[in-house]
């Protein structure tokens, strides 16, 4: 998952709470000092608003009986657009994914054409991992979450994001842990409606980039299935080379961009 895609996922959920103003507008019990839940969310989103970059993503999909390693070339504008191309293993190489806002296009070299992923396919696992295409493109949950600070200490601020009854999510709650001070994401846990944690994203290997602290590794664990894990790491990140707009077109999806 690229930083922009990750930011999109988190920001969509977090901005939802911020936009509604349902987070406490005044300091309340459990707030981070003088900061409210909304303030915390705003700072996390701002911290995640990255810069354009070229990068290599190494994705490892672990299952009880096998482990599959992928390598992808990523290019992003740091905001709402990104292009990812699988370069390894050979049987998957050539597949490409173009994300623009909430639209996701997929290119398969065997078909020789691009397809817009319909909603029926967006919840499918990305390359068989524990991530779904929805995780990649980011769902817009504006106006559909209530956010509160449920705990805080020197190590983490914990936000509980509770979806509204009509929210198009099957989860009962999202638990978002953030590092105080730098407001970097530490973990995002998905709970079902019975209070059971079903999936957890954990962020690590933080680096400083132009005054921002961002994770270079994240891990997704399926808490319901033993041995189901997906790990993604960024390597060879280039922030200096500009990313042209032509990289976010269907032509680039099929032929690449450099």
């Amino acid at each position, binding site marked *: 998952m690229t930083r922009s895609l990750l930011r999109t996922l988190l920001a969509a959920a977090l901005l939802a709470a911020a936009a509604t103003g349902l987070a406490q507008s005044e300091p309340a019990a459990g707030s981070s000092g003088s900061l409210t839940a909304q303030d915390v969310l705003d700072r996390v989103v701002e911290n995640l608003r990255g810069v354009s970059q070229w990068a290599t993503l190494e994705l490892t999909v672990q299952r009880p009986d096998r482990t599959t390693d992928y390598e992808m070339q990523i290019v992003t504008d740091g905001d709402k657009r990104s292009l990812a191309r699988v370069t390894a293993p050979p049987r998957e190489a050539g597949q490409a994914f173009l994300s623009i806002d909430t639209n996701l296009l997929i290119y398969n070299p065997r078909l020789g054409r691009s397809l817009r992923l319909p909603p*029926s396919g967006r919840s499918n696992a990305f390359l068989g991992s524990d991530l779904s295409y929805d995780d990649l493109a980011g769902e817009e949950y504006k106006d559909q979450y209530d956010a509160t600070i449920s705990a805080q200490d020197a190590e983490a601020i914990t936000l509980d994001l509770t979806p*509204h009854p009509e929210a198009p*999510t*099957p989860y*009962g709650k999202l638990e978002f842990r953030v590092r105080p001070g730098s407001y970097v994401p530490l973990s995002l846990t998905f*709970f079902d*409606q019975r209070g059971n944690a*079903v999936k957890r994203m954990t962020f690590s290997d933080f680096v400083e980039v132009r005054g921002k602290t961002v994770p270079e590794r994240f891990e997704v664990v399926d808490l319901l299935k033993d041995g189901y894990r997906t790990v993604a790491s960024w390597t060879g990140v280039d922030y200096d080379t500009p990313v042209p707009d032509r990289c976010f077109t269907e032509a680039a999806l099929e032929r690449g961009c450099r």
Partner: protein
Amino acid sequence: MTSPSRRPPRGNGAASLARLAWRNLWRQRRRTLLLVVVVAYATLAIVFFWGFTDGFLDSIMNAQGRLVAAPVLVTTEHYHGDPDPANALNDPPAVERLALEDPRVHGAAPRIDFGALLRSPYTMEGVLARGVDPTREGQVSDLPASISEGRMLAGPGEIVLGRGVAQRLDARLGERVAIDVSAMAGPQALGLRLVGLIDAGTPAVDDSTALIDLADARTLTGVTGATGVALDVPLGQETAAAQAINARLNGTVRAYPVSELLGALQRGLAAERIQMIPMGLLFSLFAAVAVTTTVVVSVLERMREFGVIVSLGLDQARLAWLVTFESVFSTALGWLAGLVLGYGLLWVLNLTNALGAFVTGFYGDLLQGLALTDQISAGMRPEYALFASITIALAALFSALAPARRVRRLNPAAAMRTE
């Protein structure tokens, strides 16, 4: 001595032979009873055969109409050929008003059928969802009455699932299920609370049904009208009602009876009916042979008696007609008794739904996909009596050819010496 006439007796002669034949039946009660029982059994078997066949096929048609499709569905021709919401009806209320003018139509309800993805925290399921008017859907469908847990939709924001779907999603009553749809205006999604579980008794329904409010379906699909209007029409009158409605419809909107909504299944059912015809004829043939053999044995047993009759002055030809009258009368008695028993059996089977237990217990999972529940009726059509009467006609024919021919060649002297 004049030669025996092969022509049937007429006038008083025929009446006398008939009276004599009728009296002979009650002189030989045991023999008559045996023949009556054979014919009654054959008639009962024929009536039951057609009643079961028609009832089984009608039950499939009824289940398809009341649980899967609709007794009659009014939609655009384009949608019938390509079930894309883009081909939906623009003015469902106008269609409803026109359809309700037909006295056979007792109710109407709009629907939106569309493909959707249901998501729970654990997995996802593709379904063909249906947007319905909760206040009227019960008129045209048995699905609301099949809810075994929870309740029917009360308005937007809710969903009712087949129990099999809910189990695969691991969704419980009161929990939220996310639904994703590719709408005409782009992808849409909603969170809906599960309020009811359907147990129709057939996997074709329980493993695939998802009902939501019509307003939610319009939000998700972008359809402002409906993909179709379902009509409540009594079983057996769907085709006639659809034809009458089509005579008043304009443009590209048409009414389709359930038989035209089944696709390949309809062709299979039609083929099944055709295949039953030779089997039914075989039934009648076996029954006729049984009757004829019984008559033959009866004639052979009475050779001495016939010898006495002929020696007393009744010619062989009239004696042959006497034998024929006796077999026709006894066969007719058996036919009437068989009809009473046969239709009575079908009535009892309908009352107790014994066929449902038998069919589901015997066929089990082989009938999946037919939407057949454990409620299976038996047909009770008057034409079964006509089919059974073929037995009488064949019996009369065979008795004229074989036993009557034997009697016609009777030698009285030889016959009276028969043991």
